[in-house]
């Protein structure tokens, strides 16, 4: 057979995996859905995500209905009955268009999930490379810090950080973030999740560090940066690619949990998590306001988890990073502090 790169074979394995293709299509559909938010808002619903319609009436199939009834009950889904307005009904007393909010809220959730996954994966790679390359006391310091964050229950640490920063914001030298900024949940989530990626990656780097090609590079006069980024990093890519969708899924779920309890996205921003939180107050009159954003998060996380699983099968068949690692108890190799 002709010389083909391992990436080519991984691509072929992935392409023949029907679950992977379905998951990818689902995720792509969700991305298109949230990207289309302004289009739907301007052309179909003719309203914005925060515009209220408390006392308005709409024509549904020739019949006039109130967007919000006198007792505060919002209108349910009218589908295309009003030409696309209030497709999924209104969101509560304020009478905002649920469909528009769902599309815009998804942008926040995806932004936080993907943004924090990028940061935590980047940070984890950096820490793993430093610890694995230098070994000795650098490794000790980094691994102890990671072990410590790992010992702290994820949700509690995120709640503590999220609520503390939501009150006071962050003011560290040149970095100044206000309490309501989206950066707060992004940073909190990436910080708490980093350890779950960095610990297994560090083990990987330590093993690679012993290999001949690293010795050869050092003997050939390569400096630390050259070895870390030129020799070690390329060998981590397959693991990183597997981690990324799993991290994004986990982070979106964490965002929704944080926002649900009120320590995540702060008003006036909204995400699927805050929508669930608000919808839950109306569970018995308008259950869809909880179930719809909940279903969106579930579908997104599901597509990413399936994709991550399939990527692992394709890229890294021997990997030990298992599904169960995601229950909050990532224990790669029986390491205990």
């Amino acid at each position, binding site marked *: 057979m002709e010389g083909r790169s391992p990436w080519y074979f991984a691509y072929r394995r992935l392409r023949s995996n029907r679950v992977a293709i379905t998951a990818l299509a689902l995720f792509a559909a969700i991305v298109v859905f949230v990207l289309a938010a302004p289009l739907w808002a301007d052309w179909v619903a003719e309203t914005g995500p925060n515009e209220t319609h408390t006392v308005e009436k709409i024509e549904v199939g020739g019949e006039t209905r109130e967007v919000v009834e006198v007792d505060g009950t919002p209108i349910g889904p009218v589908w295309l009955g009003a030409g696309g307005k209030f497709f999924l009904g209104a969101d509560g007393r304020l009478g905002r268009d649920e469909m528009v909010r769902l599309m815009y809220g998804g942008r926040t959730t995806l932004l936080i999930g993907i943004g924090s996954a990028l940061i935590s994966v980047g940070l984890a790679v950096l820490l793993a490379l430093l610890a694995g390359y230098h070994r000795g006391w650098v490794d000790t310091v980094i691994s102890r810090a990671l*072990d*410590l964050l790992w*010992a*702290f*229950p*994820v*949700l*509690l*640490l995120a*709640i*503590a*950080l999220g*609520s*503390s*920063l*939501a*009150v*006071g*914001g*962050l*003011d*560290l030298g040149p970095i*100044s973030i206000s309490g309501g900024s989206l950066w707060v949940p992004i940073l909190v989530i990436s910080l708490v999740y980093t350890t779950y990626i960095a610990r297994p990656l560090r083990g990987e780097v330590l093993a690679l560090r012993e290999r001949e090609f690293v010795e050869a590079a050092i003997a050939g006069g390569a400096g630390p940066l050259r070895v870390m980024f030129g020799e070690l990093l390329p060998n981590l890519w397959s693991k990183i690619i597997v981690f990324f969708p799993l991290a994004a*899924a986990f982070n979106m*779920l964490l965002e*929704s*949990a944080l926002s*649900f*309890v*009120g*320590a995540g996205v702060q008003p006036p921003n909204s995400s699927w998590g805050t929508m*669930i939180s608000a919808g*839950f107050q109306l*569970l*018995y009159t308008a*259950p869809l306001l*909880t*179930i719809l954003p*909940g*279903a969106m*998060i*579930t579908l997104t*996380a*599901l597509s990413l*988890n*399936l994709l991550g*699983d399939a990527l692992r099968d394709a890229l890294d068949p021997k990997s030990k990073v*298992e*599904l*169960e690692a*995601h*229950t*909050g*108890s990532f*224990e790669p190799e*029986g390491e*205990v*502090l």
Partner: protein
Amino acid sequence: MGRFVIKRLAGMVAVLFAISVIVFLIFNVIPGADPAQRMAGKNATPQLVAAIEEEWGFDEPLPAQYVKTMGLIFSGDLISYSTQLEVDEQIVEGIPATLSLSVGAAVLWLFFGVLFGYLSATRGGRLTDRMLTGFAVLGISIPSFVLAATVLYYLTYKIELFPASEYVPLTEDPLDWAYHLILPWITLAILYVGIYSRVLRSNMRDVMNEDHVRTARAKGLPERQVRVRHVLRNSLIPVVTLFGLDFGAVIAGQALLVETVFSLHGVGQYALESIAKLDLPPIMAVSMYGAFFVVLFNTVVDIAYAGLDPRVRVREGAR
């Protein structure tokens, strides 16, 4: 064994100390605004802020502040400045509900996880494997509180199959206690059943190919006995490890969310009500106690585990 226990306990004390420092940093040092102002809550008077500054020692150097803060938390004198209620009292009141939910759910998910894992390893084919995998992926993809809210709506409101929750103390009426908790238990447990069955299934499949199993069959043991005594028992070890880690994480995580949705008035609901008001002292105490509980629990599991499985002692001792 003695050396292992001492080493493990020393490690635990170090982690507990470090966690207390992290919590201290998160609430008192890192954020931008004046700490006394933040602790006081939204509608604080200047007098209250001044009193808090004095009590917590915010004008003193950090180590002194740390000592004062820990003193406040662990002496049980911590109060919420917005509700004027003692934080420790509120937490202690919530513990039975949170614990009942977590323990009950854990029993359910272990039982059904082992049952389904065993059945699919011994009888199942590709289809059951796929179903378990699908179930496991769904379990990690669905937010527990969304599932909880959905079943709450459909099963207690639409069809009145279960009581609209509220916690009934076990000592008051054990039957009613269980009846009110069934739905929360199932909701929480269902997230983990798939994962556990899958782990057990793959372990059993590995163990089935080992020599000692062939020996057991060769000496004429009935198949049932081979499966239960030789295969299942050996395959349970990783499940127990996983459980040791998950249980603590669930109490300090998903249980808090699920309990809130079903309004069981546990620790989680208390924390959540405090977060809604951004009332920091209770959040601080709950995070601290929760993390402490998880670390303590994991230590106990590790020690028990080392007692059961000598290999762990050797591996850990070598480090």
